[in-house]
């Protein structure tokens, strides 16, 4: 075989192609120019030009969440790198595999406060799974290989590769060799659980009286949906998903009691509170779930399955911890339950109790169809209308705030990877660029971005990217003319003092704005027009449609857990609460 000579820039792109990367999102600049020149001279990796580096990271993130494959982005040094930070932190908090390549000033300039120099290794350090500063051009293929391995295995996360400009110099060639093996010292991975732990888990599960399965984003990352579903069926007990886990257990299944936590359903939070066994699968007991951890699940024994040992006993001490791949471990438990011939009717009374709770105070999924005296649109009705128009089959991305919670509560996700939102970091501006990433991954699928007039303005510039690449995303803007979630908190906890939440007089005309980018804009203000507009929006297959829906500005998201309380202490409406 003849030796293949490449520059560092060419080696970088070639190594990405050899890692089966088909698409990357980025924005060029001085320190990345050699790399961009290498991109120009090949056709294996497609580069998508966004309008802001934050959007590059979110688009790569959306791509990763929808496909399960790592997302890739490329930014330049200095402001390019710092603009990428929010997106890297977003991926880090939700354990999403990203490889972020940042240009850096030339080696000999590092530390001199050179033009567009910033210490990317330092700035990104607390929000990456790992990072590399390339020191020799010859190392690039191995570093790329390591970066993908680290980003995608165990608990996934973002990896940064910082590449000094001189190491991508097109005039300095070296022999390109893509490694077939990798050597990583003490890089521990956990897959299967010990047989004795599996037996213990099965014993705890079957000997319980009131078990609940609580599955999160880790179960999606591990592609464990089929196993979690089977476990649910073998057990016949209630199953709840976290905000990040929605879709890993089908929402339309009778045993599914909805999302739990801060804005979880009444029945899910009651089940968690009353359970005598909580089995957490790829979930990390975060503060939006547990409410006050000292009052969390006091009656329950706890089993925790997680790929990250440091998630175990971090917030809640558990009785049985299994560090491993959720797919493998749940499959092992399922086998054990089958071997035991466990009779799932045991939990029928408990399941019935959960359904009784649902009947009492569950979400009203029929608001759209009920007679309404007013023509004011409730935000929940918009989600129900979108669900109806898409047959529940769309990929739905969201931003952060009330619209995100309404989407999570009212769009029923029956499959994993269809609900794409920033759960951990809560990044406004995530929705639109994430939807672009999804659309590139699945051009034939319907992709909706459910957003609000606050969030959408944080990455609105991407309407231009959507125009350039012809991405017919459907933007459903729940326009309540205020920062709704902040307003809700100000209503509930700050005596209605609306500090810095309104901009009604200065909102753009979203219709004209969409049109100026070459898209379709539509506005709905009356409930009676909602369904038709929604149908039309989704019927325009080849167009990006910005559907600006004026919703009731006074609506709050309920249920809502009482601050510092236990999981049974909820506000259920503006007038009803479960506690004194």
């Amino acid at each position, binding site marked *: 075989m003849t030796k293949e000579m490449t520059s560092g820039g060419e080696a970088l792109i070639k190594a990405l192609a050899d890692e089966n990367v088909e698409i990357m999102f980025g924005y060029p600049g001085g320190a990345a120019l050699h790399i961009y020149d290498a991109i120009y001279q090949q056709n294996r990796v497609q580069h998508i030009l966004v309008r802001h580096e934050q959007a590059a990271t979110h688009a790569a993130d959306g791509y990763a969440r929808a496909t399960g494959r790592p997302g890739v982005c490329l930014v330049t040094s200095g402001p390019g790198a710092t603009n990428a930070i929010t997106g890297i932190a977003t991926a880090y908090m939700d354990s999403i595999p990203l490889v972020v390549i940042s240009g850096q000033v030339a080696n000999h300039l590092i530390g001199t406060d050179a033009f567009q120099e910033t210490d990317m290794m*330092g700035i990104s350090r*607390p929000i990456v799974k790992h990072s590399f*500063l390339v020191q020799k051009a010859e190392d690039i293929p191995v570093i790329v290989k390591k970066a993908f391995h680290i980003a995608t295995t165990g608990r996934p996360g973002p990896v940064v590769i910082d590449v000094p400009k001189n190491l991508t110099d097109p005039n300095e060639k070296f022999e390109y060799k893509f490694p077939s093996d*990798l050597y*990583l*010292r*003490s890089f521990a991975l956990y897959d299967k659980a010990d047989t004795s732990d599996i037996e213990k888990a099965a014993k705890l599960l079957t000997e319980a009286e009131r078990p609940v399965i609580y599955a999160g984003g880790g179960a999606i990352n591990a592609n464990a949906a089929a196993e979690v579903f089977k476990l649910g069926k073998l057990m016949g007990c209630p199953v709840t998903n976290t905000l990040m886990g929605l879709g890993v257990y089908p929402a339309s299944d009778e045993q599914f009691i909805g999302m739990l936590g801060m804005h979880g359903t009444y029945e899910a939070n009651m089940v968690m509170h009353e359970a005598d066994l909580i089995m957490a699968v790829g979930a990390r007991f975060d503060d939006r779930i547990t409410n006050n951890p000292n009052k969390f699940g006091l009656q329950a024994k706890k089993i925790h399955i997680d790929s990250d*040992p440091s998630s*175990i*006993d971090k917030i809640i001490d558990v009785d049985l911890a299994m560090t491993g791949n959720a797919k493998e471990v749940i499959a092992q438990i399922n086998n054990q339950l089958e071997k035991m011939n466990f009779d799932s009717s045991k939990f029928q009374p408990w399941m019935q109790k959960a359904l009784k709770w649902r009947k009492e105070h569950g979400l009203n999924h029929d608001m759209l169809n009920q007679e309404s005296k007013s023509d004011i649109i409730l935000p929940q009705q918009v989600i129900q209308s979108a669900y109806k128009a898409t047959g529940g089959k769309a990929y739905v991305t969201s931003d952060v705030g009330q619209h995100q919670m309404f989407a999570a509560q009212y769009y029923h996700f029956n499959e994993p990877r269809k609900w794409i939102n920033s759960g951990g970091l809560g990044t406004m501006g995530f929705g639109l660029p994430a939807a672009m990433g999804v659309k590139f991954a699945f051009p034939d699928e319907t992709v909706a971005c459910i957003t609000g007039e606050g969030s959408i303005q944080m990455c609105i510039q991407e309407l231009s990217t959507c125009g350039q690449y012809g991405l017919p995303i459907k933007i459903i803007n729940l326009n309540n003319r205020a920062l709704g979630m902040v307003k809700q908190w100000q209503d509930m906890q700050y005596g209605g003092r609306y500090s810095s939440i309104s901009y009604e007089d200065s909102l753009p005309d979203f219709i004209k704005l969409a049109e100026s980018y070459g898209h379709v804009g539509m506005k709905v203000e009356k409930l009676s027009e909602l369904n038709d507009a929604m149908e039309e929006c989704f019927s325009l297959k080849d167009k990006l449609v910005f559907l600006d829906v004026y919703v009731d500005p006074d609506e709050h998201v309920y249920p809502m857990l009482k601050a510092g309380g236990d999981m049974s202490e909820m506000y259920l409406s503006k007038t009803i609460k479960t506690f004194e």
Partner: protein
Amino acid sequence: MNHIALLLENQPGALSRVIGLFSQRGYNIDSLSVAPTQDETLSRLTMTIGEEGADINQILKQLYKLVDVVMVQNLSEVDSLAMELALIKLKKSKFDVQKILQDISLENEILDEKEDFTIFKVLGDTKVIEELLAILKKEEFLEVTRSGTLGVTRGSESLATNDQTKISYD
């Protein structure tokens, strides 16, 4: 008091990941020492974490999760040795340094002495060094520098790396 021994890849930025973890997660380090080992690809750290209520297991897990951290061990949980070196420069007074040093269970040596100062070293248990510093409290310190605690397990066991984990692809 927990002494933690840690082997770290000798890579740029690796130490900052360890230090950063402590501030990021809100843990306090009482002392830290870092130096190369006989294996040039590795540095060895000893950290002392005295904080009450610190979840030491969580700290160990978070440390081990860092890709550059090759091995980590809580020396306080096993039979181990720990010691610290301090160099102390005192302003001369009526105070008899030699007398004090004779009475204290620290290996010691006066390194330099003139009319107006004394420099001496003490080597031994961190607590005893702190006791000595307390005794000397009234004296005028010109400088004190301490190595931080160093630790090693007793017996023939050593804090070793796993072999390089080979990850093969088809």
